[in-house]
């Protein structure tokens, strides 16, 4: 029996393996195969979503590993929502990569893309935590190969190692968490666990924290985000647009929503932890993004900061906040992918990502520039694009928890986001064009099409926000056993006016920074970069002083040296010392046994006399 639910997993997997067997010299066969496979998966995803919305969710149940474990897949409304998003991005990226040379060897690029798609689809469809863990850990492997094979430099390999190590540690946390949950609840099926939600005490609390670490690290939250900016420098634009911008966010937030709402009943403390984590991620990442002078690096910090909004939204634990988080998850993937695609197009045509070397490209690349403007406006939350609506929902959710401070942090994040995109757009697409970029042409059609589709989605989900709200968000909340509040609609209330104020403040800030830096747009952030106290903090951050991975890695040589010393010491104790002592005794005895008869005789007589005295004293004559 071929179940439709298996197609998004098995088809990419099989095609990826076929891809490896294709001859090296064939042209466009890999590209066409991948595009075709992802298109089929997209259709299968749409069909899965339809049956989840209008009929019964598709399920698959097979006994696995003998007795006891079942391999269960289930495409409920939330899972199929995430599945169709993943399929959409796979399709768009495979089209985008059609003629994108900087992606690395096309064989391995498409192999990794299809494998990532298959395992990501498996992870969201898994009803069983063990199956989820299997697919989740599989993604780790392809994350490594994706980065390591994207460029031939050592930096790419080091970044691949870094991302692997960070995610391996957090995946280990997830593994332990899943194990604890299975022990406590006696089942690994999520619907069974959801039937009797776990509460935040004892082992269950620990399990939640561990699983949350796994989820937020996949989403790229502080402090597990540090590999993403490095990957932006050392890997390709399609990879950034696909994995950190889209798939990782979708998976991480999907799983965070599952555990926080569906499997566990959180308490106030854990809510505060989640919201604080979200707010800190927003602010730290956006502060870093603001001062970047590299196109992709700047975008990558935003990818981190946007994850903060989603975590904040889920941390509110009220339906409107969670709906906002899920909506933001989709929206972020759409515009962040689009932005990375524009970065890729600019890099392809100009050969650089450095803001100081770019400028005035709008006339040369009008469609790319337009897509950039739409996506940048969407990420900055300008009405009436999609980002505005999802952010409004998150603001509402966080205000209704009563903690105004998180709302303010989110607004401050929005201000800096807009400011940094003003700086970015100004320095890339407007201003004076450098002389060596006179010949730049528009990007090819295969790059423009996915960008345009994504920009269109930004507009469509903004003006027609009811569409995703009714057909994606409301069913997803339903699948999470939550009541559905009023989601759609445009409300010119206080929040709307506050967002107008934030926009104006950001524009004024940019104008001031532009003026202060003497008309160089890429230096428009310098007045904040060089502000007292911030300057020193930034300097430390540039030295990676706040990167836990780098801090740990910096201590590795010392730890290794110390361990080596300890090892040598034990080696000395067990090896050198005994053999040296034995050698010394042995030599001494060798010198003593020199064949001298008088010496031997003296020894014998002396020994005999001592012996006689001892036996006479203790045993015999007194």
């Amino acid at each position: 029996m071929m179940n439709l639910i298996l197609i998004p997993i098995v088809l990419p997997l099989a095609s990826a393996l076929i891809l490896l067997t294709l001859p090296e010299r064939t042209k466009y066969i890999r590209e066409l195969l991948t595009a075709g496979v992802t298109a089929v998966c997209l259709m299968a995803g749409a069909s899965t979503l339809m049956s989840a919305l209008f009929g019964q969710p598709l399920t698959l149940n097979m006994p696995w590993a003998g007795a006891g474990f079942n391999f269960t897949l289930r495409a409920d409304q939330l899972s199929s929502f995430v599945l169709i998003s993943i399929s959409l991005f796979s399709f768009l990226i495979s089209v985008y990569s059609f003629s994108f040379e900087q992606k690395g060897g096309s064989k391995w690029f498409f192999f990794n893309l299809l494998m990532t798609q298959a395992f990501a689809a498996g992870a969201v469809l898994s009803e069983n935590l063990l199956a989820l863990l299997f697919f989740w850990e599989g993604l780790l492997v392809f994350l490594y190969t994706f980065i390591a094979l994207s460029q031939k430099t050592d930096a790419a390999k080091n970044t691949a190692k870094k991302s692997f190590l960070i995610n391996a540690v957090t995946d280990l946390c997830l593994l332990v968490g899943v194990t604890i949950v299975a022990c406590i609840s006696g089942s690994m099926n999520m619907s069974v666990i959801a039937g009797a939600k776990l509460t935040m005490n004892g082992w269950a609390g620990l399990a939640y924290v561990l699983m949350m670490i796994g989820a937020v690290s996949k989403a790229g939250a502080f402090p597990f985000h540090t590999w993403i900016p490095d990957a932006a420098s050392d890997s390709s634009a399609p990879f950034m647009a696909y994995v950190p911008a889209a798939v990782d966010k979708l998976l991480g937030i999907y799983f965070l929503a599952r555990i926080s709402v569906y499997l566990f009943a959180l308490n106030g403390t854990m809510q505060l932890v989640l919201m604080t984590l979200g707010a800190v991620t927003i602010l730290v990442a956006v502060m870093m993004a603001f001062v970047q002078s590299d196109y992709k690096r700047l975008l990558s910090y935003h990818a981190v900061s946007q994850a903060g909004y989603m975590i904040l939204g889920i941390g509110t634990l009220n339906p409107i906040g969670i709906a906002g988080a899920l909506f933001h998850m989709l929206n972020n993937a759409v515009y962040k992918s689009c932005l990375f695609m524009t970065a890729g197009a600019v890099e392809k045509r100009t050969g650089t990502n450095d803001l100081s070397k770019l400028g005035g490209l709008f006339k040369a690349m009008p469609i790319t520039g337009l897509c950039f403007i739409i996506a940048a406006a969407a990420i900055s939350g300008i009405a009436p694009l999609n980002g505005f609506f999802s952010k409004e929902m998150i603001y509402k959710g966080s205000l209704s928890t009563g903690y105004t401070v998180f709302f303010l942090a989110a607004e401050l994040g929005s201000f800096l986001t807009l400011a940094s995109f003003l700086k970015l757009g100004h320095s890339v697409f407007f201003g004076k064009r450098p002389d060596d970029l006179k010949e730049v042409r528009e990007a090819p059609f295969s790059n423009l099409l996915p960008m345009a589709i994504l920009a269109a989605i930004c507009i469509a989900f903004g003006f027609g926000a009811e569409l995703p709200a009714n057909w994606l968000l409301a069913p997803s909340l339903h699948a999470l056993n939550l009541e559905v509040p009023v989601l759609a609609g445009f409300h010119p209330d206080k929040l709307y006016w506050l967002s107008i104020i934030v926009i104006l403040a950001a524009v004024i800030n940019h104008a001031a920074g532009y003026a202060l830096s003497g008309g160089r747009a890429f230096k428009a952030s310098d007045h904040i970069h060089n502000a007292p106290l911030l300057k020193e903090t930034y300097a430390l951050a540039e030295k990676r002083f706040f990167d836990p991975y780098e801090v740990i890695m910096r201590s590795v040589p010392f730890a290794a040296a110390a361990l080596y010393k300890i090892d040598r010491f034990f080696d000395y104790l067990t090896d050198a010392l005994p053999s040296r002592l034995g050698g010394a005794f042995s030599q001494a005895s060798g010198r003593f046994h020199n064949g001298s008869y008088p010496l031997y005789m003296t020894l014998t007589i002396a020994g005999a006399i001592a012996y006689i005295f001892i036996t006479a004293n203790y045993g015999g004559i007194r």
Partner: protein
Amino acid sequence: MERGLLAYILIPLLSAIVIPFAARNKPRIADIIANVTLLAGLANMAYLLLNPSNIAESFSNIPGDGFSLLMVFTIYLVALCVVFFSAFFAGPMANRQAYFCLMLISVAAMCGVVTTSDFFTLYIYIEVLAVTSFALITTDDTSAGLEGAIKYFLLTFPASVSIIVGLSLLLLSVGGFSFENVKMFMSAGSPDGAALFGIGLILLGFLIKAGVAPFHAWVPDAYQGSFAPVSTHLAGIVTKISGIYAIIRISMLMRFSEGEAQALAGTLMFLGMLSIAVGAIAALRQKDLKRMLAFSSISQLGYIVLAAGLGTPLALIAAIFHLFNHATFKTVLFLNSASLEKAAGTTDMDKMGGLEHAMPWTSWTSVIALLSTAGIPPLSGFWSKLLIIVALWAGGAKVYALLALLFSIVTLAYFMVMQKKIFFGKKSAAAGISEVSAPMLAPVVLMSAVIVAVGLLFPYFYAYLVETIAKRMIL
């Protein structure tokens, strides 16, 4: 004296008398007579011990003293190996008849030692054994042989003095020399001081004869200097019979485990441990193979003395078992050293190397023997060392048990060094070395087979020890 065993003394003696006449013109006849005599004795003894009905009834119908029987068997086994080996080892010998004659007299004397039941006769046989040993050491009359013989004679001379004085004290206080007298005197409780002192002096004599530290100085020189098969004979059996046998016997009679002669027992254990340590450490750095094996012997005899000093039934049968095992694997190692001496022309380990391909049989029998000495399962040495250590632990001597265990690792270390230097590693400059002839390998292979067989058939051996020694003579 066990009358049933008298034939094992008289027949070799008779052969020894026959040899000078029969082999007057054809020296090879001496080889044949000696070998046939010993083979017949061994076959007889093997049938006595190992016939199927004995095994079926787990040795309970064997008559008399199991310790003596086992020792006679061991004597014949080792002596046959040595005699067979030396018949092919030695080329033209000036005094072939005398050599085989002396070997047979030595066997007769040893059988006398292990079958007698009073201390005076024991002393007489031991002196006979000592005299034949001096003569045997000088077989190839080099200066080294003479030096070894003189050292052996002079350094074991204090032993005779000590034994004589001890015997007279024993006669004065107990009124007789026989084992029964000593046993009765011990079982009467609160033993007389003078008698204990006498026993202590006798024990001292045997300690010197056995080469236990600190009276061990003569051992390496005597083994190194003497004719190669003779050093096998000395190390394999003579020192054990002339020293260790009597020590175990005295330990049985004195009931050391019951604490009536605590000072003696404590001293004995201390000297045993000292021997283990001194022998093992000194063996680590030896350059000459025979000297290294001599120190190894000192160390292994230390285990036996340590167990004998503890004196519990388990410790005593462990000591006897180790005595037997030590005879087998030390014979293999010394015979191999003799083969090497013949093939490579030296016993200096630094001058040999990479001989495993040239001499595979010698190499692998050495490996078996050394692994057994170091106590690696399932070889025979593992079981006897295990029994010794278990007995020490169970008898409360836990520090000694741990030290014994530690030094068995050192044993492995020095044997590994030996094996690496001689057989493994880089090939030495001396080319053209080839394996010795098959008849010379036969005794070594036989002994290796015994080592493996005893290890694998340990339950039968253990049943023999328990049935005929522990149950009958100690408890």
